[in-house]
């Protein structure tokens, strides 16, 4: 750490490595095109999108095109349990005799659907709440934020366990409970945005020209906080998938005969000392790559929406 002075780049706020040509002299490039270009400039982000897209497609198409038995325990008596990978079962079979590769796709359907739907619910509820809180301000804002503080003081996993053990464990309920309880942090971030933008000059100019509140939210506050909304939504999806896997480990995830990646990993890791690597590592790799790529897409989206990187 001696030659910091030579590293002047530190002082530059995250410049794009290569200057990206965003505008030409005679045409105005629409903003979404500029943003797409910044996003596409990020090679790792493209790789993440491709990987995630392939995984989603595979999870939903492969079980249709090449169905494997994943639910009927009676039919597995003909197969060898915990069988090593072979030509017939590419990734072997699990401790119930189900084909492991097919099961990764089958469990992925549940994990990914739940992640995306819960993430969507999260962002809709969180955005609405945060917008209202930040835009209305005053005592409403204080009360709404204190409520969030109260919720945030309970560790999330404790709350999930409590609610799930009290109510039922159906898939729809899991989606609802993760979706409707994960939005507190998001609402806070978006509230901060709304509060900031409400007090900026252009919003106040609109107010002074007699614009209605709804118009200001729609035309000014929402479009200008979209970067945080999109980023936060992406991270929420990753979080929902992770929390579902933690529930799966505790046996509270999606219940048999259906399965999800967390439950599968738990079943696999309980066999870890028998050396059945095919029940853990392929799935763990897919899982980690999916979550990493979702997070990475979130980072890249944040860059794409960063106004400083746009040239106008």
């Amino acid at each position: 750490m001696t030659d910091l002075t030579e590293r002047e780049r530190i002082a530059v706020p995250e410049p794009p490595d290569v200057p990206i040509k965003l505008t030409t002299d005679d045409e105005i490039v629409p903003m979404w095109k500029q943003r797409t270009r910044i996003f596409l400039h990020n090679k790792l982000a493209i790789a993440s999108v491709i990987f995630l897209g392939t995984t989603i497609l595979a999870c939903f198409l492969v079980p249709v095109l090449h169905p494997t038995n994943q639910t009927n325990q009676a039919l597995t008596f003909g197969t060898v349990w915990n069988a090593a990978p072979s030509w017939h079962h590419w990734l072997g079979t699990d401790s119930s005799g189900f084909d492991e590769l097919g099961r990764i796709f089958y469990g992925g359907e549940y994990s990914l659907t739940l992640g995306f739907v819960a993430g969507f619910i999260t962002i809709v509820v969180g955005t609405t709440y945060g917008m209202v809180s930040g835009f209305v301000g005053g005592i409403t804002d204080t009360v709404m934020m204190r409520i969030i503080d109260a919720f945030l003081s309970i560790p999330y996993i404790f709350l999930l366990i409590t609610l799930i053990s009290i109510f039922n464990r159906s898939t729809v309920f899991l989606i609802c409970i993760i979706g409707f309880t994960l939005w507190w942090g998001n609402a806070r971030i978006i509230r901060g945005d709304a509060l900031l933008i409400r007090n900026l000059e252009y919003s106040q100019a609109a107010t002074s020209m007699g614009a209605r509140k709804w118009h200001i939210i729609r035309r000014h506050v929402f479009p200008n906080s979209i970067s945080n909304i999109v980023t936060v939504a992406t991270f929420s999806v990753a979080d929902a998938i992770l929390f579902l896997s933690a529930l799966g480990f505790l046996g509270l995830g999606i219940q048999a005969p259906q399965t999800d990646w967390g439950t599968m990993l738990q079943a696999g890791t309980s066999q870890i000392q028998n050396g059945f690597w095919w029940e853990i590592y392929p799935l763990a790799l897919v899982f980690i790559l999916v979550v990493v790529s979702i997070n990475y897409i979130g980072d890249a989206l944040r860059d794409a929406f960063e106004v400083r990187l746009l040239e106008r």
Partner: protein
Amino acid sequence: MLLTFSLPYFQTHGIRAPAFTVLGTKATPYNVAIWAKQHGMDQSYFVRFWQYATQVLFHFNLGRSYKENSSVWGIISLYVPRTIWLAASALMLTTIIAIPLGIYQAARRNTVGDYTATGVAFVLYAMPSFLLCMLLLDAFSFHWPHLPNSPPSGVQAWAMFTSPEGFILPVAALTMLGVAGLSRYMRGTVLEVMVQDYVRTAKAKGCSSRRTLFKHAFRNALGPIIVLLGLSIPALLGGALIIESVFNYAGLGIQTVFAATNLDVPTVLGITLLVAILTLLGNLLADIALGLVNPRIRIEGNAK
């Protein structure tokens, strides 16, 4: 605060009867009815909520466990020291490791070291925590059997000093998870501070780079990090819950899981309430510490 425990409490009863998990599946309707009456299940939600709230707030009485022959407070006081040991030692190690790591990454931005640390943090962050624990167990207690796979099962808090080797793996797992999150924040915060005007001024007046980094940038980056540490307590205890379950570490987390799967509602509520109070304490401590490192906040406080 009231809301914190009112929500779960309102939803607790009636949907799936706790009576069956306590009395067993063979309980007759007569037994169930008697049990329900004993525990006030025949009263309305509001009456029960009022009773619970007054009992907790004015008598500091968390009620009796449905499942164990003990008061909820008895269970908590038995298990809470071990969980606090686990969480506190992990938090301390996380701070000791993550802050220098974050500064290193910020100072050596876009080098191999930075990329490696970021990559490892990304993977750790994306991994389900129980998978990490299982891999640690597999490596250090099965393939190279140097460490025991779970700490001594007694509930004495001082077991950490009498047989520390059992605690290495749980603490290490919790620390790794914490470092993954905190070092990224530290890196981001230091980078943000590095572009501020006062850092440029420090450089311009001829400050050595080391002095700039530690005297000017680091001290100003500490504020957000302290707030984050205070806010990370729920995540820490949530992580402890999973880790306790994997390592069979007799603490609050494993007790919560046990109580929740048995619908032992008073215990779950009591533990949740305690954890919420711990979180608030953490935030309070963070605020005080913030005042210590940031003179501006102290002066504002005195001026009022």
